[in-house]
């Protein structure tokens, strides 16, 4: 449990030829938090994670994990010692059995916990003597999770950890992440399953086309983000709603929908001044925030 941030990057970039996978990414992930990392396919999530772990060399920019520089070879080794990582492709040796894989992996780490392995084996119901290549996709994911959770890492990074898991597996995964977090491990996980992020995350970062669009606490989203549906006795196309907190405005006939990130009172007041005949304020979920910001801003980023 240290006070330095789990992850911080400034202007981190990676290009493959002319394709910019990550552009000028400035990210700050606090310690002792569960942070969700969202973005569309190809938004740059996996490339970012691989740069943090020294598996991909940044084209530009600067980054630190647990206070250590990602571009310094010696410090990068130390990072990998303190970070547990579940990769997107859950790469494992197919010719080994589950038991052999566990024994093989345990030999690399001083912080290995045998009691934890036993508990996770029971929870995940993994068959010890099966070859990895004959495991189902969900079982492979569970094995990869077990190998990461069996340690006592300061930071746990997971790239699409729920891929291939059935609903019970997803629930077990979330329980594991919560339990790991309560032991003081910072957790940083990417996912396409917005509901999972919404349930357990303290903070959420959304990237699009290699850039950070949103970095908010879930409390802020729940407290401040609103959808405000207005009805006017006339067509409101010309009305001025360029107020603080307004993220987007859509009109259809006499209806006007405002997607706001705050200042609900101010927007409602303006609507009243325009003689709105109906004002309805509803909270929005992370899904709407994701769709709203990614759709709204992705065109502007081209």
């Amino acid at each position, binding site marked *: 449990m240290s006070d330095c941030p789990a992850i911080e990057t400034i202007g981190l970039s990676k290009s493959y030829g002319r394709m910019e996978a990550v552009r000028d990414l400035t990210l700050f992930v606090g310690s*002792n*938090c*569960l942070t969700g990392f969202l973005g569309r396919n190809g938004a740059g999530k996996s490339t970012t994670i691989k740069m943090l772990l020294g598996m991909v060399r940044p084209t530009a920019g600067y980054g630190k994990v647990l206070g250590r520089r990602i571009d310094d070879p010696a410090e990068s080794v130390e990072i990998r010692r303190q970070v547990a990582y579940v990769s997107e492709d859950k790469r494992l040796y197919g010719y080994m059995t589950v038991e052999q894989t566990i024994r093989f992996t345990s030999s690399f780490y001083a912080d290995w916990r045998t009691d934890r392995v036993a508990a996770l084996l029971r929870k995940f119901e993994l068959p010890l003597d099966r070859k990895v290549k004959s495991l189902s996709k969900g079982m492979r994911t569970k094995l990869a999770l077990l190998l990461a959770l069996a340690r006592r890492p300061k930071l746990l990074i997971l790239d699409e950890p729920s891929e291939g898991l059935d609903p019970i597996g997803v*629930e077990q995964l*979330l*329980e594991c992440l*919560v*339990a790991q*977090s*309560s*032991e003081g491990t910072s957790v940083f996980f990417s996912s396409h399953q917005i*509901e999972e992020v*919404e*349930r*357990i*995350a*303290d903070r959420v970062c959304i990237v699009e086309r290699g850039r950070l669009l949103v970095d908010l606490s*879930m*409390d802020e989203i*729940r*407290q401040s983000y*609103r959808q405000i549906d207005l009805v006017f006795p006339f067509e409101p196309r010309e009305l001025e709603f360029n107020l603080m907190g307004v993220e987007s405005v859509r009109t259809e006939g006499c209806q006007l929908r405002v997607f706001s990130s705050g200042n609900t*009172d101010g927007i*409602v007041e303006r609507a009243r001044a325009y003689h709105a005949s109906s004002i309805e304020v*509803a*909270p*929005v*979920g*992370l899904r709407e925030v994701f769709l709203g910001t990614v759709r709204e801003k992705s065109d502007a980023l081209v």
Partner: protein
Amino acid sequence: MIFPKLASTSGAPLYLQLMQRIRHAAESGALQDGDQLPSIRALAEELVVSPNTVAKAYSELEHEGLLDLRQGSGAFVTLSRRARSFMDHVDRARERVSELVDALRAEGLRDDEIRRVFEAELLRAAPARKR
């Protein structure tokens, strides 16, 4: 005590929802003076929410005087005289609101209309009171 799941898209931060549940449990008698609540870790796992959510709810409730957090041994319900009088106050308020709602219904207003009137009134009064 059995904790209901929290609503992840309700527009209220999860720690506030959890505080509300615990307060309600204390008001309704499901939690008694001196009862122990689960550890942060146990409750976080049970509700499948971030431990920070539980920690924040517990510490805010400690500020309110409803919980006593003892290092290492957990969270205990403390229905102090002040907390009890606050709950009596809330109870009396509920009775008055319930009479008012009954009266408005008797006058023919629908529930969603009544709700809108309440919400509009709170919204109107809120900015001035908050500051």
